[in-house]
């Protein structure tokens, strides 16, 4: 079916309604969503064509059925539980953030002191010092790369707070 049957604004009122190509207008007619000019075109067709009248009647009956139904609501006691869980979840999120931050700071400092102690150790062979140097450069480059990627994605993703 044609997805964009009517982009916006009414068509010329003298143009006859085409039930094949413009069938979605019948749904809009039943919903009372058509502008006056379009409504007039549909009504002109309805007056002249029993098949279109029958189709509108079928759409009305379906609408009556769907209007008689609604989505169930969550009971109030569920919402009480929901809000308790939500605040706990939020609290835990903050706790994890603090824990991670603390671990990074403490771990980072311990690592720094460890590498520093090895570096100044005169007994350590030169190739081990080279290894430590390469290890530090690798970690630093990875960190910079990940941060840069995150910033790049954040700047370009319109729905970064929405879809994940």
């Amino acid at each position, binding site marked *: 079916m044609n997805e964009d049957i009517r982009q916006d604004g009414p068509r010329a009122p003298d143009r006859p309604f085409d039930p094949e190509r413009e069938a*979605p207008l019948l749904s809009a007619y039943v919903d009372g969503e058509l502008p006056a000019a379009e409504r007039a075109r549909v009504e002109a067709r309805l007056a002249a064509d029993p098949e279109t009248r029958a189709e509108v009647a079928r759409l009305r009956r379906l609408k009556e059925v769907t209007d008689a*139904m*609604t989505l169930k609501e969550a009971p109030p006691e569920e919402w009480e539980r929901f809000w308790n869980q939500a605040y706990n979840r939020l609290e835990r999120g903050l706790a994890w953030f603090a824990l991670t931050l603390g671990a990074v700071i403490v771990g980072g400092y311990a690592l720094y002191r460890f590498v520093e102690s090895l570096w100044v150790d005169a007994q350590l062979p030169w190739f081990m010092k080279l290894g430590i140097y390469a290890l530090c450069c690798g970690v630093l480059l990875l960190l910079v790369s990940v941060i840069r990627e995150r910033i790049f994605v954040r700047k370009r993703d319109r729905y970064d707070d929405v879809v994940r």
Partner: protein
Amino acid sequence: MSEKTPPNNAPGIGVGDPAAGAAILQDAADITRFLAGDQESFGMLMKRYQQRAYAVALGLTGNHDDAMDAVQKAFLRIWRALPRFRRDQPFFPWLYRIVRNCALNQRRDEHRHRGDVPLDWVRQPDGRLSPLAETLAADLRERLWMGLEALPLEQREVFLLYHFQGLKYREIAELLDIPIGTVMSRLHSARLQLRKALGEEEEAAS
């Protein structure tokens, strides 16, 4: 024909709708208070929208537990993202996109058994079924729901927004960023599919 109101009687999102205008102001006030450190304002804001968010999630996941999980995840995202929300805009479209995506992620990640059919009959103010509902076949809810589940996502979404969120065509078009003609086509296609799913039973409504 009676018109259904969205869950919690929340206002639409239409520009120029006085109720929507008042809602924008109320939401903006709560958000401003929240950003100033009043965390209770967040709860007040979200409680106004919780049933509506639940209806969005339930329509897309088809399962109470998944819907509650998706809404909870969505609310946590909103908590974090609220400083970036533009307060001169209606809140519901923004919330809708977040809940929708959390619900679709939930649907993809969880494979729970489908529970009860999440559709109910509209009841009269005294709690009784409407005379129309009493004349319809008992399994009609199940068949309608199965028909809805079988719809392509884009048709199902438009159907849910129109019938269960009470939005107008133009509001749906703005929310989904599609032409109004596309809303019309998707809704019509959805109805033709549902008609097939319901078979001749709908005749009973006549």
